[in-house]
């Protein structure tokens, strides 16, 4: 059946419900949030319609600058760590037997879907004094006494990398599984070692995919809202944690909304960049 443009009103029928739902419950809430970001905050957690820029002006404070700087730094660190391990891992996974691939994919999907609350709880247990990994170190004779490893920057970073790693692999998987196997075979025939073939042929061929993945994982890590709170100190809070905190505990919706709008703009700019990086590949 050839695709035809809709001719009668009835042809649009299937579109009514999805379009209505998405408009009413995604576009309108989004617009509401933007509107609230310009509202005037009242004492006691309420806000009144207005058009003020106070909420955005607060971005100019040193405190906000620090939070933003730390969020970006943390997300970059997590993205780099995940991609550095994820690229060789996914490359090898894509060349494994179908059975091995499926087993890993099921495991990765299960961990990816695990609630951030549960990931935070699992790592706080692993880093605790009484049930944590330091007990193993003591048993091995590496440490004299078990200790708690949270709250700390290392704990936040580890748990966020844990959360983002399955995502990284699943973003890389389609590109790597479709990669022409003759590429590295040719390099091998010409005498390159597997490692050399990987770094000089596979990685350059995937340059744009890797760049796009870095950006996607970066945005994913920016969205982490609980791990810095559960495993870090207040100075390890990120923009997402701060938005949640302002909206729920400080009841300052206009400020939370302004920060969310800012986060949207940052994310959209980066998605655009990722799409652009992906396009470059096709153009070649």
């Amino acid at each position: 059946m050839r695709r035809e443009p809709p001719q009668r009103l009835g042809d649009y029928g299937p579109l009514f419900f999805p379009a209505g739902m998405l408009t009413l419950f995604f576009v309108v809430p989004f617009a509401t949030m933007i509107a609230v970001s310009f509202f005037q905050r009242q004492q006691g957690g309420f806000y009144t319609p207005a058009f003020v820029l106070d909420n955005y002006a607060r971005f100019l404070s040193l405190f906000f600058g620090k939070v933003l700087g730390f969020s970006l730094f943390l997300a970059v660190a997590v993205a780099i760590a995940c991609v550095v391990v994820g690229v060789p891992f996914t490359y090898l996974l894509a060349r494994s037997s179908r059975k091995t691939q499926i087993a890993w994919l099921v495991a990765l999907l299960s961990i990816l879907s695990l609630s951030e609350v549960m990931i935070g709880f699992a790592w706080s247990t692993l880093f605790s004094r009484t049930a944590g990994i330091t007990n193993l170190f003591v048993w091995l004779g590496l440490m004299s006494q078990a200790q708690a490893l949270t709250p700390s920057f290392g704990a936040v970073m580890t748990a966020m990398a844990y959360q983002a790693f399955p995502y990284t692999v699943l973003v890389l998987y389609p590109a790597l599984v479709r990669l022409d196997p003759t590429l590295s075979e040719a390099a091998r025939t010409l005498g390159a070692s597997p490692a050399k073939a990987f770094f000089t042929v596979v990685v350059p061929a995937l340059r744009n995919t890797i760049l796009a993945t870095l950006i996607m994982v970066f945005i994913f890590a920016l969205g982490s809202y609980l791990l810095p709170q559960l495993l870090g100190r207040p100075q390890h809070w990120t923009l997402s944690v701060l938005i949640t905190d302002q909206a729920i505990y400080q009841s300052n919706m206009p400020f939370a909304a302004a920060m969310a709008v800012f986060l949207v703009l940052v994310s959209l700019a980066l998605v655009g960049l990722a799409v652009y990086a992906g396009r470059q590949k096709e153009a070649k």
Partner: protein
Amino acid sequence: MTALRRLLFFVVGLFLALPLIVVAGVSINQRQTLAFPPQGFSLSWYAQIFTNPEWRNALVASLTLAATSALLALLIALPLAWFLWRRLAPWANIFQLLGVAPFTLPPVITALGLLTFWATTGFYGQSWTAVISHGIFFVTLPLVTLSLGFSAIDRSLVEAAATMGADDRTIFRTIVLPLILPYIVSGYAFAFVLSLNEYIVAYMTIGFTMETLPIKIFNALRYGYTPTMASVTVLFLVIAAVIFGLVARFGDLPKLLGALSEDK
């Protein structure tokens, strides 16, 4: 190469498994202590999920929310994916973009948007608002699997049916639906599992009036530790693994995740 692969797979596997092993360990402690290796053996913390009314209510709330919101996500995604496949309407792609957006942006944004929306309209805290919120938030998953399913349909099949006089409705029921059924099921399964585990959107919409399991764990964490958190985590992990395992058993998981064909 094989040795290198084994080593990398082992290290990654260990990193991914370690926190889960410890959680599984503390979930079988005899007494209410956070100890690993576990002291004694008891499954009572698993029984707690079903016998303690607070945890059981949270479990029922989570399952109800996941089952209904995944259905809603599917009901939004199916006609949209069908329309985009059937008709030539480039401007309608904007709705595809809207459907993918909540999942691409940081979740706190969707959560806050819905919080301001429900607060403004005065429905804040009603349990059905969470169903709609999750349905919109997870519409991406069935939308992506269904778009994949539709693109795999051979159009000449449909054309043959049309030539023989079948109308759109008949074509959809007799040809399209059977062909995309596996994608419908997997799209629903993905949305179901993710909704079960979702915290921030649920918290910002119904967090003050009812508890899903992730909300319950978070609230319980603030008052200290109870091994039931560990047993719930293990339970959820098993549910996810079983569901994704079934999708892999009866469908083509590598293809769903972007591989080209099944004969590999």
